[in-house]
């Protein structure tokens, strides 16, 4: 069981998320909607987020194809590093729900949570080594000012030991959370999970 970390309004506790508008009623869902819920996430049918997005199943399908390939595909950047980028982006954008989910995933993959506490506390200085610091720095910069990203930002990642395929995976992980955070922040809100 993980230690609870709470800092600056962020937490690694499990949260629920409630949509502000009407979600798709599973009893009235079309076969296409049910199919896209099943391919999106193992628990999509009981989560407001996916049931709200299922109002547009074709769009949700491509979002989920991209998201799942970016976060779970084998090879390239270590999955813990992808989660670290997602966590840093969510922290910068202020997405408490996303940060809690990806804090947990980072800990599951990395078997430690020291970096989570650092990202919650002060993302600008977070990272337990040069590689993590470079990943967090890039994630912050592309979140805050994508127009200022240039070759020096890529060179900094190379200097920290990332190869081109890993840098691409990092870019995708940070960018897909520009997408995910905006939906989570603007279509509903987190609440503490009910005890099962």
């Amino acid at each position, binding site marked *: 069981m993980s230690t609870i970390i709470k800092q600056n309004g962020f937490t690694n506790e499990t949260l629920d998320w409630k949509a502000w508008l009407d979600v798709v009623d599973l009893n009235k869902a079309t076969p296409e909607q049910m199919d896209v819920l099943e391919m999106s996430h193992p628990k999509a049918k009981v989560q407001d987020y996916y049931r709200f997005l299922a109002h547009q199943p074709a*769009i949700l399908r491509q979002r989920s194809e991209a998201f799942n390939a970016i976060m779970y595909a084998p090879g390239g950047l270590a999955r813990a590093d992808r989660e670290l980028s997602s966590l840093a982006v969510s922290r910068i*954008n202020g997405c408490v729900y996303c940060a809690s989910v990806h804090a947990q995933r980072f800990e599951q993959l990395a078997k430690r949570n020291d970096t989570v506490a650092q990202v919650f506390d002060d993302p600008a200085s977070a990272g337990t080594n040069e590689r993590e610091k470079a990943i967090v720095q890039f994630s912050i910069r592309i979140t805050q000012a994508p127009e200022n990203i240039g070759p020096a930002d890529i060179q900094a990642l190379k200097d920290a030991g990332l190869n081109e395929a890993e840098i691409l995976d990092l870019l995708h992980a940070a*960018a897909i959370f520009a997408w995910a955070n905006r939906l989570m922040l603007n*279509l509903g809100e987190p609440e503490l999970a009910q005890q099962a």
Partner: protein
Amino acid sequence: MNDTQAGAGPAPDLIDTLVGLAPGDALYATRHARAKVVDATQASQALFFAPGGNSLPLEDRLMVALHASLLSRSEPMAAYYRDALDKAGADAQKLAAIEQGDISGLADTRLKAMLAFTETLITRPIEGDRDALLRLQAAGIATPDIVTLAQLIAYLSYQIRVVAGLKAMKALEQA
């Protein structure tokens, strides 16, 4: 807005085009090794900007994209969507309002509400609230169209960053 001739095959990959990636480039090979990401990104682009099959008019979707690109200071994306709007014969007054960054005088209240929502998501995503969605509903936009609009804006923020990052990678490769 589609340059390809009928029967000429699928549209070229937009991100490859904007970044300037061609088969044979090392970065092209790296990018296309993540084929599912490339395919889902291009399929999203095709869905969001399909001429029909969407109850939000294409011109409005392109205006949202131009507004998002300008607010994000993404020159390549702004140029691309501006060109697409010109080809679609977009309303000059609406275009001028977006390019001047002042949508307050727009008479089209539905488009104005969509552009205001774009501005919040792009520049201050933390400030999202339920009232913003109710304002969209009050402007005549039903829930499924609100989902399309939110997905579109969120997708654009992804696209802008992928293009910016790949351009930086290419610049380093060529340095």
